[in-house]
């Protein structure tokens, strides 16, 4: 690449700039530029060649002359005939005008010469050099260049003849040749320049015609044609020019047709309702309307003439300016994908129109313009917005339904539901208040609030009307008394005090309110309020469901705990039975075994001691049997199966409370019939647990157990006058201890399993009253044989002291 910057490659461009532009002048100068150097080269070459050959000829002739002269004077040199030598030398000089001097000498002969005024001493020093060159020795003297030729006519005999031949004739010939060549060059130069000028004029005449044709073509004469004979380069150029003119003429015609078609197209587009505007895309008028059709002008609420010349931005909604700018830039850069751009045009009355626009760049009146095609899609847009809103609501309701259908906690449901509502309404701030048992509001869920807690004074605030009156409320501007105002302002950074509130209703009961906030009161139209109302109902149901889910979950948890406790109690019971069998019954039986062994021994050794020993063994065996019966009764009193519920309760109460000095009263009323086995078992176990608890915790003096059999249900009441307790502390899962509470829960569970109810009322120091109601279906045929107690024992009181 560096070679291209070298001067030799920049030379053509520099010459082109330095030379005149006219072709004729250039050709003439070029010819002169060729002739002059050629003449100079010829001059130099001729001079060199002439000099070379003349000097060669002079060398040859000089050598010949010297040889001839030497031969002529050789004998004279041998004989010392000085006169003959002088004569010969003089003759040579006189015969040849180029010979400047001649001299000769021999070993015994002085130098004989032709110098009239004396022999130049300088020549003596050249004698040793002169004979070495057959071309002669070139001397530079006052008479010009002289070539000294030396000849030894006697061979090795030391005699020499010298001839000095001037080169002035050669110089004269060269000068003459130079003058001739210069003259010829000058003549040739003038002749060549003239011929070149004439020929170039002749040659460029078609070019001139071509140029004039191009100029006429440039002035719009598209029918311009040039007549130049074909076959030459210019002729080919003329043919190409004519072809180009024809093409341009055809293209212009097509363009005019296209313009007419475009105008028709604009008219036709306007006729079918397309708004068209041409906006200037260059120069000072950039952005101004160059043309608008009637439809476009009608959209803007103006006459066409009023819009032309105004800036397009003046009728655009400010929010649309950026979109228009981007679309225009894309069209300019050629990256537009011709997808319509939606903008908002504001007409003269301030009414906005949604326009669907597309554009392209065109030439209009010699200026580049943006052809802007518009269509009013305001109504379609409204319909689309309505559909979109409907879809959004449906989506929100669906999402809400999905959220509420999941087994979530009430707060999780409210949180998710609130998020879906805000998303559906395109809002960011909302909250849910739930009514507490004391009638106050509790913030159950929120989004976008400055702080996440507090009651905002609800429901005393303005939106509390939704709760009080069970209707949607729209608070357009919360007053200063509204505690929500501060939180909302902090969140939105502005007067976001408008909020809509709807009640959360489930099963006819208002559980709380849902509020959503917006800076724009217009946001909450009837459709939004209806949606909020539906959502409120949905959320109420969801809240109720969530509560039910909570209860169910709590029950499930309780059931699991009971099951675990039952298993653990079963294991404890097994351990107790095993321990009693081992510690009591087992020891007793071992003692019996040892006693029998002793009796057997005594029978053989001391029969008299056998009888007392056997008596002790009998007593021990009887005790053992009682122990076993106690164990068996602890497991399940056979009295329950054999005699019924009342005897079993009596027996158990006596067993557990009598030793503690508790007075037990058992009452029976209603029909005396045997209850179903599972009912009896449940009532016995409930009473068993109650008696156990009384024995352990109540420190009671009196206990009353009452059974009342009614139509289809049996009611058992166990009450004492013990220390009492707080039921909530025992029944609450959170406050339920590891041991305490599970007895009551087990009783409750047994009751519920049989479709009954169990209630416990107690208070510290006020004793405890347990009331269990269990429905049953009377069993046919069992009424006589399975009574609660033996006939006549409808009431039994057991006073245990």
């Amino acid at each position, binding site marked *: 690449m560096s*070679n291209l910057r070298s001067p030799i490659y920049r030379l053509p461009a520099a010459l082109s700039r330095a030379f005149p532009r006219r072709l004729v002048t250039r050709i003439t100068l070029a010819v002169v530029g060729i002739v002059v*150097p050629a003449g100079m*080269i010829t001059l*130099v*070459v001729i001079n*060199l*060649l002439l*000099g*070379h050959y003349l000097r060669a000829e002079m060398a040859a002739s000089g050598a010949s002359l010297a040889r001839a002269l030497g*031969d002529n004077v*050789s*004998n004279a040199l*041998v*004989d*010392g005939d000085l006169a003959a030598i002088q004569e010969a030398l003089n003759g040579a000089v006189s015969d040849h005008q180029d010979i*400047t*001097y001649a001299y000769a*000498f*021999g*070993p*015994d*002969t*002085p*130098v004989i*010469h032709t*110098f009239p*005024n*004396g*022999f*130049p*001493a*300088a*020549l*003596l020093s*050249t*004698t*040793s*050099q002169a004979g070495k060159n057959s071309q002669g*020795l*070139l*001397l*530079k*003297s*006052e*008479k010009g*260049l*002289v070539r000294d030729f030396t000849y030894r*006519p*006697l*061979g*090795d*005999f*030391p005699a*020499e003849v010298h001839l*000095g031949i001037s080169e002035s004739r050669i110089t004269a010939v060269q000068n003459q040749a130079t003058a001739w060549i210069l003259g010829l060059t000058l003549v040739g130069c003038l002749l060549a320049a003239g011929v070149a000028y004439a020929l170039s004029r002749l040659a460029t005449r078609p070019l001139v015609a071509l140029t004039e044709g191009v100029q006429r073509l440039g002035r719009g004469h598209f029918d311009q044609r040039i007549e130049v004979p074909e076959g030459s380069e210019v002729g080919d150029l003329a043919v190409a020019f004519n072809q180009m003119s024809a093409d341009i003429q055809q293209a212009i015609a097509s363009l005019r047709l296209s313009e007419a078609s475009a105008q028709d197209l604009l008219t036709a587009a306007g006729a079918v309702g397309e708004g068209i505007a041409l906006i200037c895309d260059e120069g000072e008028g950039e952005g101004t309307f160059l043309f608008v059709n009637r439809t476009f002008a009608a959209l803007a609420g103006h006459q066409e003439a009023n819009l032309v010349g105004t800036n397009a931005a003046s009728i655009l909604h400010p929010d649309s300016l950026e979109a228009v700018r981007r679309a225009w830039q894309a069209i300019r850069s050629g990256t537009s994908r011709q997808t319509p751009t939606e903008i908002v045009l504001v007409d003269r009355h301030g009414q906005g129109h949604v326009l669907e626009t597309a554009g392209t760049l065109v030439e209009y009146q010699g200026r580049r313009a943006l052809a802007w095609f518009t269509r009013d899609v305001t109504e379609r847009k409204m319909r689309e917005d309505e559909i979109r809103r409907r879809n959004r609501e449906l989506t929100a309701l669906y999402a809400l339904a999905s959220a509420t259908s999941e087994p979530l906690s009430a707060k999780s449901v409210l949180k998710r539901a609130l998020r879906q509502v805000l998303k559906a309404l395109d809002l960011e701030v909302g909250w849910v208040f739930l009514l507490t048992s004391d009638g106050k509001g509790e913030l159950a869920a929120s989004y976008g609030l400055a702080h996440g807690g507090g009651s905002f004074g609800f429901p005393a605030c303005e939106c509390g009307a939704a709760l009080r009156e069970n209707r949607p409320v729209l608070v357009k501007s919360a007053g200063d008394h509204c505690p929500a105002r501060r939180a909302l302002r902090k969140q939105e950074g502005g007067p976001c005090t408008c909020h809509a509130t709807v009640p959360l209703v489930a099963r006819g009961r208002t559980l709380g309110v849902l509020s959503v906030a917006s800076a724009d009161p217009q946001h909450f139209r009837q459709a939004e309020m209806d949606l909020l109302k539906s959502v409120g109902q949905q959320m109420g149901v969801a809240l109720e469901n969530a509560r039910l889910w909570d209860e169910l979950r709590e029950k499930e948890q309780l059931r699991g705990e009971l099951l675990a406790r039952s298993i653990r109690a079963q294991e404890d019971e097994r351990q107790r039975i095993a321990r009693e069998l081992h510690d009591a019954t087992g020891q007793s039986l071992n003692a019996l075994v040892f006693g029998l062994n002793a009796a057997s021994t005594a029978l053989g050794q001391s029969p008299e001691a056998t009888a007392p020993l056997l008596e002790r063994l009998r007593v021990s065996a009887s005790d053992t049997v009682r122990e076993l019966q106690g164990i068996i009764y602890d497991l399940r009193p056979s009295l329950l199966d054999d005699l019924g519920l009342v005897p079993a309760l009596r027996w158990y109460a006596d067993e557990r409370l009598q030793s503690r000095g508790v007075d037990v009263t058992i009452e029976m009323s209603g029909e005396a019939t045997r209850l179903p086995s599972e009912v009896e078992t449940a009532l016995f176990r409930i009473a068993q647990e109650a008696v156990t608890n009384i024995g352990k915790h109540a420190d009671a003096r009196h206990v009353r157990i009452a059974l009342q059999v009614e139509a289809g249900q049996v009611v058992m009441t166990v009450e004492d006058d013990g220390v009492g307790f707080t039921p909530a502390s025992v029944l609450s899962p959170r406050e339920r201890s590891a041991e305490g509470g599970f007895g009551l829960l087990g009783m409750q569970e047994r009751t519920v399993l049989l479709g009954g109810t169990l209630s416990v009322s107690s208070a510290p120091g006020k004793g405890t009253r347990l009331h269990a109601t269990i429905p049953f279906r009377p069993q046919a045929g069992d009424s006589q044989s399975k009574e609660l107690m033996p006939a006549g024992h409808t009431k039994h009181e057991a006073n245990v002291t």
Partner: protein
Amino acid sequence: MRRALPSSPVALLGVAILFLLAGCGGEQPVAVSLTHNLITGRVDAPALTSADSLYIGFDRRLEPKEDVLQIASLAAWLEGQTGLSIGVSVTPRGSSVVDDLCAGRVDFAAVGTVSYLQSNDQCGARILLRGRNAEGQDTYKSAIIVRAGSPIHTVADLRGRAFAFGAPNSTQGHLIPRLMLEEAGVSIHDLSVYAFHDSHAATANAVTSGRYEAGALQDTLARELEARGLVRIVAYSGPYPSSGIVAGPQVPSDTARTLIDALLRFDPLGDDAESVHGWSRTEMPGGFVTARDGDYAGLREIARTIGLLER
């Protein structure tokens, strides 16, 4: 990637110009003044020969240039063989190399028999070597020639004829022919006219031009002229010791020995043919053999007889 610069005729022309400029720009002229520092009197020639050189002289046989070229080339060859500095001494016209030898101006000389006999007679110069002809013989002959259509067929027919001799000191041109004439009974006075010429060429020219009816010259040149139909050989002489190399009396024996050893290796017909100039035209074209003074006894006598040894 670097773009290759386009090759075009202009670029090639530019490259060619650069080459031409590079080729023409290499010679730097020596600055001299032709108008200042002028020597108006005698200008001595630059010394091109060492001052302590041995000098070799020669008998003029051909034109001066040829003689100098031959001897100078031999001197150069000897310098290469012996390491000695040897210069050529040209005896001025009208003077004799014998005088130079005896005067010590010349240390060695390539001379004919007469010059040896004279120098030996005058100052005791020593004959070192004598030449061999192209056939390898160490003797040479003289020939008496006439024009091709001459009626002269024997030496005796020369009586009363015009006769051309070579130089008076020439062995083949004067000494041996005098002996031949004497042996044929023809005295110099029997001739109608006679004249001496500087060289064998001049003698041949005198005969072929018709100025003289007969002439005497070296046998080799005579056979050459006869072969070309210019002359006809009437008689050959007997073989006599050819020209040789003599040393002046001042030359030390070891220097002479060095020279003898070198010249005995001289092979002008073989390896040294290119080293010497026109050696085939000398009287020793086949090289040299050792010479003894006794070989010249006969010629010394005739020379003395005809007065060539007179001072």
